[in-house]
């Protein structure tokens, strides 16, 4: 198409997407420069939810910071709880009873399922299909019931403790967990039939915002976003922590089944498939959980040795790395939390160039970002 020399001059339009927008998953603001429907540049602006968690971390003790990790990624509080506990235990060299580790793995994987359910549900809602979202929420409520039984809260669990977990599984918890898994496993197939392979849905996601494997590694993508690009890297397998080496599970990677490798659809499918693997892990963990105490004898206020530790664990939204510098006092000297979503936002501007406005929504959903984790 040639441009007519006497055509009317056109100009690009700057649109503010967010911080109040239904599909930015919170208070993300994206400054869009558009040429009609085509986005020429999308710059993320973050920080609307900055609460200074790292600064708070410097004034509370190691044990007291636990409830704040609930607020790090509120859809996967258990994973953040456990990540903090593992990091501090590594720093202070605390041995954890095996039953506690099994319980942690069970709750982490349950929380991974519930977090992926939200990712799945909100993604479909972003794409215009509202019904699967409510199906996802319905299943998540059942997980919340389990957690409520275990620790008494439905959102901010605060379950892990430095040295173990806050309470043993109440009678009937493990049985109910298995019951839930039996109920939930066929639902994944139903989701796939309902929406995943729906022609419109596939068309919306396939070949959109492709990230190659090399780019994904260079930009520090982690978790499902990295695996969606075909990199089989999972911290649970490749840098094993806790009792994960004892379980048999598969690392799900994107295959490019409906488009190019590393597009939105691959990232989406990795999450769907990971739910199946989590079910497998939980089944094994429930079957093999040993008896014993669930909390090591750790004083409420303790002084870890001088030193520093960088510990990373596989959270539903990528690697949550905790960098702790201890000066030998009761409080952390410096605490830095590297979260999956924050680093992921780095690649956002690059992959969204030339997409359409509707695709911006698809990209945000496919990275499954969550704002409290970005802004901390």
């Amino acid at each position, binding site marked *: 198409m040639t441009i007519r020399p006497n055509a009317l001059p056109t100009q690009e*339009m700057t*649109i503010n997407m967010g911080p109040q*927008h*239904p*599909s930015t998953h919170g208070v993300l603001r994206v400054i869009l420069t558009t040429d*009609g*429907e085509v986005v020429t540049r999308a710059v993320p602006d973050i920080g609307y939810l900055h609460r200074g968690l790292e600064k708070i971390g410097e004034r509370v003790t190691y044990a007291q910071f636990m409830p704040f990790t609930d607020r790090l990624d509120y859809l996967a509080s258990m994973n953040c709880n456990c990540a903090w506990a593992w990091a501090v235990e590594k720093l202070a060299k605390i041995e954890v009873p095996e039953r506690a580790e099994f319980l942690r793995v069970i709750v982490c994987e349950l929380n991974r399922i519930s977090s992926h359910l939200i990712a799945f549900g909100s993604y*479909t*809602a*972003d*794409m*215009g*299909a*509202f*019904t699967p979202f*409510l*199906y996802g929420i*319905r299943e998540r409520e059942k997980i919340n019931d389990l957690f409520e039984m275990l620790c008494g809260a439905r959102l901010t669990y605060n379950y892990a403790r430095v040295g173990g977990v806050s309470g043993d599984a109440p009678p009937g918890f493990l049985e109910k967990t298995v019951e839930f898994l039996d109920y939930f496993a066929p639902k994944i197939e139903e989701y796939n039939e*309902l*929406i995943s392979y*729906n022609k*419109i*849905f596939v*068309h*919306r996601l396939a070949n959109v915002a492709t990230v190659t494997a090399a780019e994904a590694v260079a930009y520090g993508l982690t978790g499902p976003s990295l695996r969606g690009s075909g990199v089989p890297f999972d911290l649970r397998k490749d840098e094993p922590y806790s009792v994960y080496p004892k379980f048999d599970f598969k690392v799900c990677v994107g295959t490019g089944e409906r488009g190019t490798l590393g597009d939105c659809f691959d990232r989406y499918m990795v999450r769907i498939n990971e739910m199946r693997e989590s079910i497998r892990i939980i089944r094994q963990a429930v079957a093999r959980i040993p008896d014993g105490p669930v909390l090591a004898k750790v004083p409420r206020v303790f002084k870890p040795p001088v030193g520093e530790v960088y510990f990373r664990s596989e959270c539903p939204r990528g690697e949550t790395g905790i960098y702790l510098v201890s000066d030998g006092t009761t409080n952390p000297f410096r605490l830095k939390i590297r979260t999956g979503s924050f680093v992921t936002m780095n690649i956002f501007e690059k992959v969204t160039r030339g997409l*359409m*406005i*509707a*695709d911006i*929504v698809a990209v945000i959903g496919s990275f499954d970002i969550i704002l409290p984790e970005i802004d901390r």
Partner: protein
Amino acid sequence: MESLAISLVKAVPVLGAAPLWAVTLLLMVASAVVILVFALTFEGVGSLVLRKVAGDIQARIGPNRVGPNGILQFLADGVKLVLKEDIIPANADRFLFKLAPYFVFVGSFAAFVVVPFGVGLTAADLNIGIYYVMAVTSLVVVGILLAGWASNNKWALLGGMRAAAQIVSYEVPVGMALIPAVLIAGSLSLQDIVRSQGGGLGIFGWNLFHNPFTFFSFFLYFTAAQAETNQTPFDLPEAESELVSGYNVEYSGIRFGLFFLAEFGDMFIVAALATACFLGGWQIPFFNAAALPPVWGNLLSLGVFLTKAFLMVLVMMWVRWTLPRLRVDQLMRMAWKYLVPLTFVNLLGVSLWLLVFKGKGIPGMIASLFG
């Protein structure tokens, strides 16, 4: 309308004293009021049903607090819409901003005039019925474009532009998909089209089963019409999750209510046209409603027509709560690469069929085989 007035004057001698034009005017006003009341009631009930269906499909209950089982919810919603503050953005083009909802409302309601509700229940049985519907529903696009422009909001503008592109594109397949029914009936009047689907063949007398091409025509029409009326999966002009709420993002109170009502009005028009053109309209299988006394015949056929139309509306809601939304380029591709060629092929097929088989459909041929 005039013929109706003459017959009315004959039936009721008291009216003979008044001039004929006055009686006609009176009838016009009366039928307008009746249609408006019907449309508003439908929209109220429709919104309630929509939410109930959504609730059922989404494994929840839906509205159930206002009145028994929530059946008065639509009244509560209506009262709320009327009482809410009517906000006009400071930088909006006030005149156009106020004008836009009326365009949309009028465009959607004027189409009710020709809907064949029953044997004799049509406000105006125009001999260009289908063209008339196509023409007045096009007013909606003007209203939406105005709303998008006048709001002085970028999201609204995008929604308006999307709507304009979408509705104009989808007019083509919608029109093309309706023409087979016109060809079979040999008339553009909706009443004629309905009448042509009667006879002793029962439901096989419907245009839907006339021949394979009309069968496809129905689905093509249904798909394209969903797009023309901005229903999911083609609700791009509103696109809650992308454009926040699209062209009506700045509207509130009763002005928003007008958009809302027009949306349901469009929904009914699509269902009514599909019913009239493909599903036999008010025709009752194996039963001639026109032969009954006028009152009973009309009531019965009205019931049948509304049942069919409501079933179509239910299907539209069902689709709406199942499918995700297309992207704007895919929407255009669907119109011009899929629906337009397919409807043309269909039209050609129907024309050839009618030419070759002398206007007979498959059921008709089978019936004549068995005597």
